[in-house]
């Protein structure tokens, strides 16, 4: 039967044959669970008892839960601090590194190395850094210079930036490399022309480099924003004795989802939070693409 098909028809058979398993995978492992999560968000279920319809109850509970609003604010704090800080640092490093020849590869390696580490391992390393004297490295250094101690993790104001720092640190290497590739892709002739016209370095940076880097910047902003909105590994591991604490000051949305689902077994409530996370990610990505669109 296959023999009688035209070349075009044979191609169609092959194509669907190749796609059969992957389509099954995407339907069962991606699309069905997405719908399922949305359905569960309208149910009341603790894994053991019966599943009952709850209507908008889970969402109403979320709306009235002060912890949720705290968590929501934290999640955006991670984004609002993390993204600009890592963007600026990685650009400055990439911009200057791009102009160096001597030991260029070695310097690049130093900056990229943290990207190859595991978030869990590094969360524990940084957790140790943050301990009070005589344990923690940072406070020991401060003590050596006679500077008063800083409470990093046991503080409602310092804990969030302290947890964020290793996440920014680990992501810098990737962003620097992407920026350098972007910088190298700008045609040299632009700079030559600017040099002949005697334009200052600052003007070159603002008028040529940054506008031409726009696609790279869009990519890095979207990519790192999504990463910070989904922060979990660092928070979980740096606050195991008081998850998301102290007093919920470091708790991001993903940790709240994890706790609702797998320590409180309130599946419907957790699913409603995941739907919120999904909508937030969608909104932030679309907003950024729109803000940074080509005019």
């Amino acid at each position, binding site marked *: 039967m296959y023999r009688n098909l035209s070349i075009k028809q044979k191609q169609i058979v092959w194509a669907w044959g190749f796609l059969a398993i992957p389509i099954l*995978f995407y339907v069962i492992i991606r699309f069905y669970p997405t719908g399922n999560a949305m359905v569960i968000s309208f149910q009341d279920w603790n894994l053991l008892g019966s599943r009952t319809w709850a209507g908008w109850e889970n969402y109403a509970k979320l709306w009235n839960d002060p912890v949720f609003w705290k968590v929501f604010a934290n999640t955006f704090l991670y984004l609002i601090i993390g993204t600009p800080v890592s963007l600026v640092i990685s650009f400055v490093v990439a911009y200057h590194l791009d102009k160096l020849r001597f030991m*260029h590869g070695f310097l690049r390696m130093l900056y990229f*190395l*943290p990207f190859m*580490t595991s978030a*869990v391992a590094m969360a*524990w390393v940084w957790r140790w850094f943050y301990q009070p004297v005589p344990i923690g490295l940072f406070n020991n250094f401060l003590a050596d210079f006679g500077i008063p101690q800083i409470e990093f993790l046991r503080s409602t104001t310092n804990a969030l930036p302290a947890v964020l720092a290793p996440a920014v640190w680990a992501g810098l290497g990737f962003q620097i490399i992407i920026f350098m590739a972007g910088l190298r892709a700008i045609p040299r002739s632009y700079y030559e022309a600017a040099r002949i016209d005697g334009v200052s370095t600052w003007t070159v940076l603002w008028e040529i480099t940054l506008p031409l880097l726009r696609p790279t910047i869009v990519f890095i902003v979207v990519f790192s924003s999504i990463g910070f909105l989904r922060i979990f590994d660092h928070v979980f591991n740096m606050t195991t004795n008081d998850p998301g604490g102290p007093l919920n000051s470091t708790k991001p949305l993903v940790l709240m989802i994890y706790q609702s689902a797998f320590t409180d077994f309130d599946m419907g409530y957790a699913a409603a939070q995941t739907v919120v996370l999904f909508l937030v990610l969608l909104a932030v990505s679309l907003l950024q693409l729109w803000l940074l669109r080509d005019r």
Partner: protein
Amino acid sequence: MAVAEEIRASSETLLDTKAPRKPANMGQILRWLLLFLGGIAMVMPIVYMISTSLKWPHEVYNVNLIPNEPTLENYTFVLEDGRFYGWFINSLIIATITTISNVLFDSLVGYTLCKFRFPGRYIIFIAILSTLMIPTEMLVIPWYLMSQQFGWLDTYWGIMFPGLMTAFGTFLMKQFFETVPDDFIEAARIDGLNELQIWWTVAMPLVKPALAALAIFVFLGNWTAFIWPLIVTNSVEMYTLPVGLSTFGDEADVQWELIMTGAAISTIPTLIVFLIFQRFIIRGVVMAGLKG
């Protein structure tokens, strides 16, 4: 992302070109020094992790970088316990199988979507691409329920199944198969190769660099994956390295030299791989970053 078209296709190779030679004036020297200091600061956490893992407990609270009496005692202690071996093997198996699966399936799907003309092609492409917008965290609850129902909890399959194929990898491979000339494929068809053979023997070798980039990303991602293995495993023997390390950290409490040793054990392998294949990995990261 649409970014790809706007940056010249070969930007990853541009990284290997050198900056124009400039006279070593004060500005350049200062720039080099500052970047060097910044670079040293960047690797300090890793260096301190390793340094502390080589210290005796009584020396841990000193800020000196080089241990006075270096010892491998912590490694012996942590490894003798036996659990880390198991976690290491688990992570290795899971990351390896997932990587192989992604390299095969993502490229097969990418290839099909790129080189075949058939009804429904565009819809399938959009459908797969749209899964990029769904965060993993939204899927963990249904995955957990699914695993519970089918008895996948606490098994390798349970840890692996969500990551066997990725939309990111599929998209990356599709982009790269665009660079394979259709003439090559036509020629192979005339030579009487079937479509599977064409994909495997003609197209795949031409996109090796992209396959390598994909493999690096998938492997690293699964080696360090935390939230799903944390949810799906519940016996100590089935933990992956990150999950094991997390529980170990809690258990070791204030014995920071042991925690640093555990952290080092889970970090050093990827660092060594990076140092060996550095140039190659950085190029892969750029490829994946810009085209994916």
